[in-house]
């Protein structure tokens, strides 16, 4: 028995070593190939297989995997389209996505793996907390980083990092302004996830802005128990809140809506981009979400041609309706393409040179994407675009 076990262990060890080896070899070959190709051929890079290597990091397993998978799928879709249309100035993009399971340590390891592979730009990471860890590393290496959806302030604290989505403070303040200016409520109860920097970040600026708007704000938190919200809702009932603000993700929100309905609670609900996707939850009773308002940059059933073609291609390829994260990632690839073309990026440039050129180019470009028209960036990495408020009526997102 013991012999068998040790044999099996030895076998596994050998296998894993072999697996590492096979990963390393092409990477090493590619990094050698790129400069050679460009020195001899100069302009016609595509012919000798030179590519611009873009890495991606996000959770494809674990309880945030729905976001990571959406980003991975949409980014791969965008890369295919870009390459089919001739790539970046004629050079195709090679895209590789690594899983970080929504964990900061794993994310840094994924970043190192991608660096060994020869990554020249990073599209990631998907979630805020790992992004904060990775951006510290990428800043040291001066690696250009564009996060599709890392919305915490610190996610792009370094000069090499930019983002596609709104920042948390931006969303919190915009929500409070919207509620105040449209006189949606006087007493607001916030239910937020104190274990998530996304939720906490929105709540903090929301509370600040709401008090300036003359709203009365109470807040209740949750962390590990993401299934029972009866206490928080009961408190909202006692306080006589006429609006519940939910700066959280839709998984929890769908339970909150159900429990609120069971308790006979009749308040308005208002959320941020995290609520986007709630209607796509399989078997969800959409009548529960009737009248829920949210600020989101992307609605899958919007009428414009770009959204329609993206949604239908994505759906036929992956079988799901894309959420906002998918749209952010799709935009991110096109933003990288726009900035790289502006900056004149070539495959032989080092990651650090690319980063310097991209940093300048990002502030000069203007991109019409799925998540906003005429998006521009400031040097600190924040996008400028207008948030859209939508309300759910008859089981669909409708502009307000």
């Amino acid at each position, binding site marked *: 028995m013991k012999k068998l076990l040790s044999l099996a262990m030895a076998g596994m060890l050998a296998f894993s070593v072999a697996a590492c080896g096979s990963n390393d070899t092409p990477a090493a070959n590619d990094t050698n190939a790129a400069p050679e190709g460009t020195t001899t051929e100069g302009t016609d890079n595509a012919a000798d297989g030179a590519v611009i290597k873009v890495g991606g990091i996000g959770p*494809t397993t674990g309880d945030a995997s729905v976001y990571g998978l959406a980003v991975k799928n949409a980014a791969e879709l965008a890369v295919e389209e870009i390459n089919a249309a001739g790539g970046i100035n004629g050079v195709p993009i090679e895209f590789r996505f690594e899983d970080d399971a929504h964990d900061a340590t794993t994310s840094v390891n994924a970043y190192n793996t991608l660096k060994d592979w020869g990554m020249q730009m990073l599209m990631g990471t998907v979630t805020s907390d790992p992004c904060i860890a990775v951006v510290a590393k990428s800043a040291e290496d001066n690696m250009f980083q564009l996060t599709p959806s890392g919305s915490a302030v610190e996610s792009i604290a370094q000069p090499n990092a930019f983002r596609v989505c709104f920042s948390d403070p931006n969303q919190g303040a915009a929500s409070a302004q919207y509620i105040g200016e449209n006189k949606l409520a006087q007493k607001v109860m916030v239910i937020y996830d104190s274990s998530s920097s996304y939720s906490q970040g929105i709540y903090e600026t929301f509370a600040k802005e709401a008090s300036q708007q003359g709203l009365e704000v109470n807040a209740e938190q949750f962390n590990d128990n993401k*299934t029972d919200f009866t206490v928080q809702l009961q408190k909202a009932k006692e306080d006589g809140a006429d609006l519940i603000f939910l700066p959280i993700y839709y998984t929890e929100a769908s339970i909150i809506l159900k429990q609120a309905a069971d308790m006979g609670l009749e308040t308005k609900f208002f959320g941020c981009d995290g609520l986007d996707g709630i209607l796509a939850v399989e078997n969800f009773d959409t009548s529960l979400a009737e009248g829920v308002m949210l600020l989101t940059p992307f609605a899958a059933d919007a009428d414009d041609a770009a959204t329609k073609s993206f949604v239908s291609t994505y759906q036929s390829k992956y079988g799901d309706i894309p959420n906002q994260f998918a749209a952010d990632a799709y935009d991110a690839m096109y933003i990288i393409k726009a900035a790289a073309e502006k900056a004149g990026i070539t495959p032989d440039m080092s990651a650090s040179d690319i980063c310097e050129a991209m940093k300048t180019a990002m502030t000069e470009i203007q991109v019409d994407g799925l998540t906003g028209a005429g998006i521009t960036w400031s040097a600190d990495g924040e996008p400028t675009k207008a948030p859209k408020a939508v309300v759910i009526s008859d089981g669909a997102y409708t502009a307000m």
Partner: protein
Amino acid sequence: MSFVSYLLNGISLGSVYAIIALGYTMVYGIAKMLNFAHGDVIMIGSYVVFVAVNRTGLPVPVSILLSAAVCTILGVVIERVAYKPLRHASKLAVLITAIGVSYFLQNVALLIFGADTKAFSSVVSMKPIQLADGQLNISGETIVTVAACIVIMVCLMAFIKYSKAGHAMLAVSEDGGAAQLMGINVNGTIALTFAIGSALAAVAGVLLCSTYPSLTPYTGAMPGIKAFVAAVFGGIGSIPGAFIGGILLGVIEILGKAYISSQLADAIVFSVLIIVLVVKPTGLLGKQIQEKV
């Protein structure tokens, strides 16, 4: 009035913990191992019901029976493949294997059903009971869960007390070696325990997801751990202990959230575990077993 309302919510949450804890405590009582994969068997059971009801349109009772059958087979297979070869290995090895099985099941579910949340439609059609002019609201799910919990507890206790297989379980739990010498099929008895425990997991899964209607591959993980705390609290190995521990834990969690801090609710729950282990390691109803030298 709000206190009563919190109390009712606590009992509702606690009854879900209790029904999961019954599965934990049974397996521990007989096989002397913590089946950390129990929460994930629950998750698989819920997915089976979800698929049966929403994708193939089977009636609810048939779906639950199907789910119980799938979970039973799954439980027995897990026991045979992952735990039986380790029967004489150290406790730690079995524990680590159980955690491995737990991750394995989560990732299998992730592969098959995807990461996105599914909204589980409640199988309970009972209307909520309203008391005191709608101030208090007892949901149908709470009533069914508490009732199911009590029925299952009574049935289990009767089964152990009066049936031959139940006697065999008792014997194995007291002394596996001696039981074998008396002609009891120890492996068969342990397999039977896993079968019953896993069938219970199917029922627990349906009730968990009816009360908290969202289903992901990680649905079973946190309630599973809380139910483990409940089982230890009530005295692991004791069937009524699991019930009492579960209900108390649910009430402690909700009241702690309501009156102390919503942020510290989970800290409170797990400090209960620490306090119990320090003050009364056998739990509320646990038996003090003398170690023979």
